[in-house]
């Protein structure tokens, strides 16, 4: 079986290594004249190794190789450094060099499970080069050395599959899944064999399990579609093929971008592009990874921090989002957006004081920033500060006089602030901007009714509101208007419509009683 996503699988080789595994304990027996020197050398080794790991992580592969080479100059028996070099060569698609590095790792004493990893990776390299016998030998050795890890079993399964040793492959995939039931590749491997053995139903189940765990793997979607097709389930096959094509397009784009990135590893914009590609298909984790790489390479990369903050906000990881936006502000104090976003986050967390502070800063940075003004307005409302709320909305509608929702909100605030005439003007403004705004008609009608003025007009407005949006609330307003206008039969009819829509609303039932109490003839009838 070909490795479906080589980049993803090869990154596994990196995951086996946390530096801690490879600290060679300094023997207390070597407490000699050279101990100070050895400690210094060890520190230098560690430093180079860590830098190598870091450079690998951020895609600076040539620098990584240099660092590992420095490790090996200091300690030619550092098998972990050989392994890491192998991993980097593989990421650069230099398979022969990678194999050479792994082979070297095997000639020196193991550090941790370095021999296991070297065998595993050699197995994968030889598998991809078609040297299946050697692949099998190394994959088997990897399993022998790392029997409790799922990936070696899975990779051995892949080699067996490629060689047509299906029974052995199935055993290995099953062992892999016993060790890690979330190993998507093992499910796929099982599915693959089932399909080849004409067991399409079982194949289907396996592929579905694989996709649950790795939804962006094109091979999984392709083979699931094939399984459906095999079973003559044409609609599902076609639908799945569409998923495959979308996933493939996404993966192809990422591969292209990765290649470009390898040519220009310090170009953070390329990493940002990759992040956007990931985001377009909602692969959030990969997007986060790409942005993190970008900001590691260039800590002053504002877009990276900002976009990370946005992603974390969407994920509800507010503390991380706050850190990210704070970083943006540190780098660029003069942009309103990060203040705005922080304001939103704090508002969501109901930390209104903080929210107010940041939204004010946003507004100071950009007085025309409508979102900030709106946000402030809402916060003031939460705080019960009507005056400030009105002030914010007044500013908002000055910035954008066509923002009908703002005028509507302003009108409601003015009602609450006992400024009815201004509220009337606000609602009229809404109607002027948006003649289809049911709320504006409704609110104005209610206000007229409440003020007992322009009641004929109020009836017309309330009817218009109901016509545009026959909601319980609008019928309720119509009933109120009729009531104020002493048109009780019409009021009763209207409130009964409201009750029909919302029978459990006590207010409406009380209104009905109130109307009926004013209109005893109706009751008697």
């Amino acid at each position, binding site marked *: 079986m070909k490795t479906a996503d080589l980049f993803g699988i090869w990154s596994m080789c990196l995951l086996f290594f946390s530096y801690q595994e490879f600290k060679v304990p300094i023997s207390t027996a070597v407490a000699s004249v050279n101990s100070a020197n050895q400690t210094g050398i060890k520190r230098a080794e560690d430093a180079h190794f860590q830098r190598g790991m870091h450079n690998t992580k951020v895609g600076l592969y040539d620098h990584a190789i240099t660092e590992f080479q420095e490790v090996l100059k200091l300690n030619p028996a550092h098998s972990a450094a050989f392994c890491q070099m192998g991993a980097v060569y593989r990421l650069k698609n*230099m398979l*022969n060099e990678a194999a050479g590095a792994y082979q070297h790792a095997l000639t020196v004493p193991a550090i941790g499970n370095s021999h296991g990893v070297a065998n595993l990776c050699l197995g994968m390299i030889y598998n991809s080069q*078609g040297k*299946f016998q050697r692949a099998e030998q190394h994959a088997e050795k990897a399993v022998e050395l790392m029997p409790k890890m799922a990936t070696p079993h899975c990779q051995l399964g892949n080699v067996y599959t490629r*060689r047509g040793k299906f029974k052995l492959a199935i055993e290995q995939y099953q062992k892999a899944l016993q060790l890690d039931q979330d190993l998507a590749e093992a499910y796929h491997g099982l599915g693959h064999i089932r*399909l*080849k053995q004409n067991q399409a139903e079982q194949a289907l189940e396996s592929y579905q399990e694989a996709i649950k765990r790795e939804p962006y793997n*094109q*091979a999984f979607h392709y083979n699931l579609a094939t399984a459906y097709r095999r079973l003559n389930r044409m609609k599902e096959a076609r639908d799945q*093929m569409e998923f495959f094509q979308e996933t493939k397009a996404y993966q192809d784009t990422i591969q292209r971008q990765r290649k470009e990135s390898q040519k220009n590893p310090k170009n953070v914009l390329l990493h940002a592009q990759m992040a956007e590609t990931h985001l377009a298909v909602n692969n959030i984790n990969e997007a986060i990874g790409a942005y993190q790489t970008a900001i590691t390479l260039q800590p002053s990369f504002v877009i990276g921090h900002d976009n990370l903050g946005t992603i974390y906000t969407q994920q509800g990881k507010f503390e991380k989002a706050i850190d990210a936006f704070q970083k943006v502000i540190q780098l660029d104090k003069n942009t309103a957006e990060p203040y705005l976003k922080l304001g939103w986050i704090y508002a969501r967390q109901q930390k209104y004081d903080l929210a107010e502070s940041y939204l004010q800063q946003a507004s100071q940075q950009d007085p025309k920033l409508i979102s900030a003004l709106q946000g402030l307005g809402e916060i003031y409302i939460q705080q019960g500060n009507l005056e400030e709320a009105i002030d914010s909305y007044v500013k908002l509608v000055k910035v954008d006089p066509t923002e009908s929702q703002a005028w509507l909100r302003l009108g409601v605030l003015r009602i609450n602030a006992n400024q009815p005439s201004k509220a009337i003007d606000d609602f009229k403004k809404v109607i002027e901007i948006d003649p289809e705004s049911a709320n504006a008609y409704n609110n104005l009608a209610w206000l007229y009714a409440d003020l007992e003025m322009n009641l004929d007009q109020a009836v017309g407005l309330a009817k218009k509101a109901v016509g545009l949006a026959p909601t319980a609330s609008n019928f309720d307003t119509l009933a109120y208007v009729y009531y104020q206008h002493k048109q009780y039969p019409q009021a009763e009819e209207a409130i009964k419509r409201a009750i029909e829509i919302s029978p459990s609303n006590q207010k409406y039932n009380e209104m009905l009683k109130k109307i009926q109490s004013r209109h005893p003839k109706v009751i008697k009838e």
Partner: protein
Amino acid sequence: MTIKRVIKQQPMTILCVSRFFMSCPIFYLLIFIVSVTVSQSKVSFIAVTKSGIDFKHTDGKSEKRLFNEFLGSGGGFFDYDNDGDLDIYLVNGASQIASPDKNPSTNALYRNNGDGSFSNVTELTGTGSTSYGTGCTVGDYDNDGDLDLYIANFGPNVLYQNSGKGTFIDVSMQSGVANSQWGTSCAFADVDNDGNLDLYITNYADYAVKNDKKCYVRGIWQYCGPRSYPPDTDIFYHNNGNGIFTDLTEKSGFLDVPACHGLGVAFGDYDNDGDQDLYVANDQDPNFLFQNQGSGKFEETALLSGVSYSDMGKEEAGMGTIFGDYDNDGLLDLTVSNFQKETNTLYHNEGSGFFADVTTLAGIGEITYSYLGWGIAFFDYNNDGYKDIFVANGHVLDNITDIDRSTTYPQRNLLFRNLGDGTFEDVSNQSGSGLTLQKVSRTVALGDYDNDGDLDILVTNWNQTADLLRNEGGNLNNWIQINVVGTKSNKSGIGTRIKLVAGNLKQYQEVQSGGSYLAFSDLRTHFGVGNAKRIDLVEILWPSGHIDKYKDLAVNHRFIATENAGLEIRTE
């Protein structure tokens, strides 16, 4: 005609012993041993060295690694003069940079002298095109009883009309088929069953020599890959029946797919609905399966049919392709040769329009991974009734060892024996000196050029001489060859489906023009029938829909089947 080998008669001699021996149990034991020995006897392919074929391919030798050089050129077997034996046509490249040669390289036609040797009749026949040639195919497009020749070029293609008098006339312009894109493989087929052969050419890339660029891998200069230049659309010509073709590419649905880097073309009725479908192998692009909707309109269905991508959903570098029923179930299967570090693919036709990738199950995955395959063919080399596979290999990068030490530029070709149970065995190492050659091979064509009852192989090589591999021993098993002649159907009988029953063995073959890679094979169908002494049934389904049936035929004969007019033994 070649005299049948004495060894072929030995089984006959044994069977002609007196009745005394027939009562002896040992006699039957001997029969069994001989018959077992025959079916498992070693068949060798011998590279014929003194055939008179002095052709050496050239790509123009620009020394500039021009993008259009690495594909090589094709060739094939056909009987151009209707004298009963197979002649050979070989396509050549041409100089592209230097000032025109006084003696430019040309394509070459070699006439079979009937005694195992060939004579160069290029000039005599007027077939020495000096264009930069790639692929070729044959078919009797004008239904006048002789095979015409079409050559796909980097530049205007050429149609040579066979005059019937031993010469060819270039009718490219007047017939309307001188398409000037970069043509590679091509094939004739009657897609609308109107009795006239239509023509499909796959094109590779939108490229001009003046726009050539240098490509590097890790700082090493090498030939550019297909993604360096945009792909080009293919072209389909409908035969109007009056010597003229009309470009119906768009109307037929072939432009409903994006342009790809086309290299291999194979026609075949994979869905058994009586019309010719088409498979196109593309280089680092998804492959196409165009299903004939019955009215000359095609719909692309490769994705849902399972033949578009590898089994991991990735494009492969498809080179050559051919349809063939390797398991004798009456459904055309499909095989595609691919790049190195990709297996060749064997697709089993499951029926209902779906193919299963059985590469690994069939046992051809692992070995082909290490080779870069081009021409590929199904053929029964040992006449046991099951189609085997031959593939020509050779790298595209002349300096590949500077980049990847694990592979080589010249590569050996591969022969897989069909074991009759859905699996194949690599017998390349046991099949004679012809299979030990390591060259930069490209195309494969098949034909019994020495008329001894087994299929021989023609291999073209990039910038090298072509190889004629003579089959020695394949005719120890019995065989039959059928040359079909259409009357209502196209005269070449292309698209005719033949079913043969001999004892327990049923076989199916379709007469195909083109297929493989840049090549054409003998249009006569060849069946190996193992030990069968008689052919129980030959059933011929013509493209017109007419069916002819013939029973109880002798083995080891060549027949001519004329549509609705009978079967006769060919006596030349």
